[in-house]
């Protein structure tokens, strides 16, 4: 087992890659009563076209299948896995993102029993025609619930505007129509391809003895047999740099217009330290231009273009990425103009000084230290980083050496107007009510 101590963070991380390919990480946290454990596969909603394990032909599976599989893994021949966690005091959950599916629990007691349930239920699929059909009603209601959430529609509408081909534009849960096509055979095909231990990470953080836990996980894995690891062949369509639609509007029963402004990233085929530098530098650019201490924010707030719902963010995975700004606004047209003006000005006349960089760097270091209080953040973020060959505990050293040049380079990947798009949710006309 490898052991790395991070002096400045006062944390020690333990790691071992098991014989079957499973990557196990353990981070004990002093003072915690709770342990948070995640079991994650590098498989999300974008992985829809691939060559199934043991086959030669590429297939495209129905939209929403990774999320559907996540739901169905909880059901076994003898009942529901939540029941098993509950009796052990484990609070279990799961989520599916664009690139990952994660199963997890947190517990303050019976850590090993809960860990065993997690390892065993994820590695023992049980899909039948009946259980698959039954789930369609539940997921159908989940999809309908999201359809009624204006902020979710705003977020996804912006992504749909942005992408021509890339499957990031497809809703993670799929649609009522696409999930109707899903069969137990599809689920097994996806499971066999993407749930091999070599495509997965197991992370334990909180109240834990690293040696004992590693021994426990190894013993569990040694009891099971797995086929040799094979390389997973996914395929993604070519994606142009420009957006599909620069503007689109949706009418909903809301009280105030909502605006989302997206900036599509180019040069997203990166990983490792290059990606970490790009990600942190892009976030810092957004902080300086659009953060709460920016001129943009002060003016937009004073002029009533934004309110408490205002937010901005940057996200990137291998193959796609974007910056976005969103807010409820009585005056979405003027808000859009102000955003565009800020971006244009920053492009022609670089506004960020060394002083700005130092201040935002400090803020970011503090933010990172604060987030290390959250064991949920550590496990989820660490796993995401790992799937992109980045190391979470490199954040502070990389922040410390970031230069204005890094920020300029990062900005140049999302400041072209052909990559901008606007999505608005506007209050519906009331006359038909």
């Amino acid at each position, binding site marked *: 087992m490898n052991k790395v101590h991070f002096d400045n963070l006062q944390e020690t991380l333990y790691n071992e890659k098991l014989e079957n390919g499973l990557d196990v990480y353990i981070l004990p946290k002093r*003072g915690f009563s709770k342990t948070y454990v995640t079991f994650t596969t590098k498989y999300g909603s974008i992985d829809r076209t691939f060559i199934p394990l043991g086959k030669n032909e590429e297939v495209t599976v129905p939209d929403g299948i990774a999320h559907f599989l996540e739901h169905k893994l909880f059901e076994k021949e003898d009942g529901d896995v939540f029941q098993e966690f509950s009796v052990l005091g*484990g609070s279990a959950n799961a989520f599916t993102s664009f690139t990952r599916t994660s199963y997890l629990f*947190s517990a303050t007691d019976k850590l090993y029993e809960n860990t065993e349930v997690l390892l065993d239920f994820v590695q023992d699929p049980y899909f039948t025609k009946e259980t698959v059909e039954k789930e369609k009603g*539940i997921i159908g209601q989940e999809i309908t619930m999201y359809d009624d959430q204006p902020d979710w529609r705003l977020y996804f509408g912006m992504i749909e505007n942005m992408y021509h081909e890339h499957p990031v534009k497809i809703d993670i849960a799929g649609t009522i129509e696409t999930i109707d096509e899903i069969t137990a055979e599809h689920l097994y095909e996806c499971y066999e391809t993407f749930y091999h231990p070599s495509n997965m990470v197991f992370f334990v953080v909180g109240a834990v003895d690293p040696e004992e836990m590693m021994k426990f996980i190894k013993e569990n894995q040694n009891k099971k047999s797995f086929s040799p690891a094979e390389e997973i062949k996914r395929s993604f369509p070519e994606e142009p740099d420009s957006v599909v639609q620069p503007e689109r509007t949706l009418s909903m029963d809301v009280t105030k217009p909502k605006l989302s402004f997206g900036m599509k990233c180019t040069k997203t085929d990166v990983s490792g330290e290059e990606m970490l530098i790009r990600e942190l530098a892009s976030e810092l650019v957004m902080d300086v231009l659009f*953060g709460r*201490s920016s*001129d943009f924010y002060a003016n937009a707030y004073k002029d*009533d273009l934004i309110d408490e719902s205002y937010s901005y963010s940057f996200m990137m995975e291998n193959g796609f990425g974007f910056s976005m700004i969103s807010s409820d606004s009585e005056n979405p047209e003027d808000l859009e103009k102000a955003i565009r003006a800020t971006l244009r000005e920053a492009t022609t006349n670089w506004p960020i000084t060394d002083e700005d960089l130092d201040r935002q760097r400090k803020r970011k270091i*503090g933010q990172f230290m604060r987030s290390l209080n959250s*064991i949920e953040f550590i496990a989820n973020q660490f796993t995401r980083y790992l799937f992109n060959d980045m190391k979470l505990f490199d954040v502070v050293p990389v922040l410390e050496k970031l230069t204005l040049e890094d920020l300029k380079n990062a900005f140049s990947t999302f400041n072209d107007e052909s990559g901008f798009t606007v999505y608005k949710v506007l209050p519906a006309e009331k006359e038909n009510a």
Partner: protein
Amino acid sequence: MFTKNRLEQGVTLYTRKSNQFKTVNFSVKWKNNLDVKTAATRAVLAKVLEDSNGMFRTQTELRNKLDELYGTIMYTSVAKRGDTHILSLNVECVNDEYLSDGGVLDEAIELLGTVIFNPNLEGDNFKPEIVEREKKSVRERIRSQYDNKTSYAQQRLLEILRPNSPISTSSDGTEEAVAAITPETLLAAYKSMIEEDTVDIYVAGDIDETEIAEKLKAVLSFGARPARKIETFKTTEKVNRTEPEHVREKQDMKQGKLHLGFSTPITIHHPDYTKMQMMNGVFGGFAHSKLFMNVREKESMAYYASSSYASHYGLVSVMAGIDAELEDKAVSLIKEQVLALQNGEVTDLELDQTKALLTNSITSTFDSARGQIEVYDQFKELDEDFTADYLISKWDAVTKEDVKKMAMDLQLEVVYLLSGKEGDSNE
């Protein structure tokens, strides 16, 4: 769990040393009566104090300062608990130990004093443009609730269930009450808050408790004040229902939001309070509960189906997202679960699962500094020596018979459905 230190009459410091966290958390809480006018005024006051102050005159100056202090967090919030309105000022800074240059903790404490005692005044009053801007902010916050269908439906249920009462009164007040605020009324509210309110100050983190108490005493110069008794909400309308009331409302939306309101005589002040928490857990608090197992898993009717117990108000509410056409079926299924509880159909397994998850939940909450502060602030009013173990031992003692007895006291008062306008041809 917190060390108590009386700074003045009516002003108390609670500190908790722990090396678990990389930050130090501060929270200052002012408590007053919950009424619409006080709530509205204090919601705006909270925003005005967060915006700027006498030392950092603009939002930008203040935010720049916070960025420089390694992203120190500073925000205000308002909340309610029973008949009490609470305004909190929260500050969180990174422990100096983790930073290459120290001094952040001292500056954060300074800032706390500045925000409280040195507001951004122009002459003798708050700046009218800041007051107007923040009134608008709070008004927008109140309005935007309409856009979140689940929270809107829950608010409507509470308004129908108990009109003009603490449970249906927002800690932001109402749009009308916010509109009536002037810089003068805001200043009067500020002075009354600083001089007359009961003040609780919390600090949690890797601190030297004696040293931090000295530093805070020097900066937070609150005077003594007589103990304030929170008044019981005055305008409570008595609602007498012999039959459950059914209310259906429409918006442009797809899903049906079904909310049911049950009343119970058991509140947090009742000795059976922990039994009621157990009843709610078996009923609908978790993924092993009757609602989840039957409405979601067995019938595939919903993605979420759960219950929650508002212990300060003696209410249990159920919420489920369903196809509106299945309303009757869903309501009978929910009633069947209540009936099962009332008939004592509770298994050992259900009881054990609920105990284990309630225990996990409270123990987990103590793994965050803010969780420690919020939970202790609530329970210290019942018991100054409160610990999580006390609650855990109470849950452990709950029997099936207790759960049955608690369920017998539930009275269904309101069934509320918020649903879409399409497909309503049968109406």
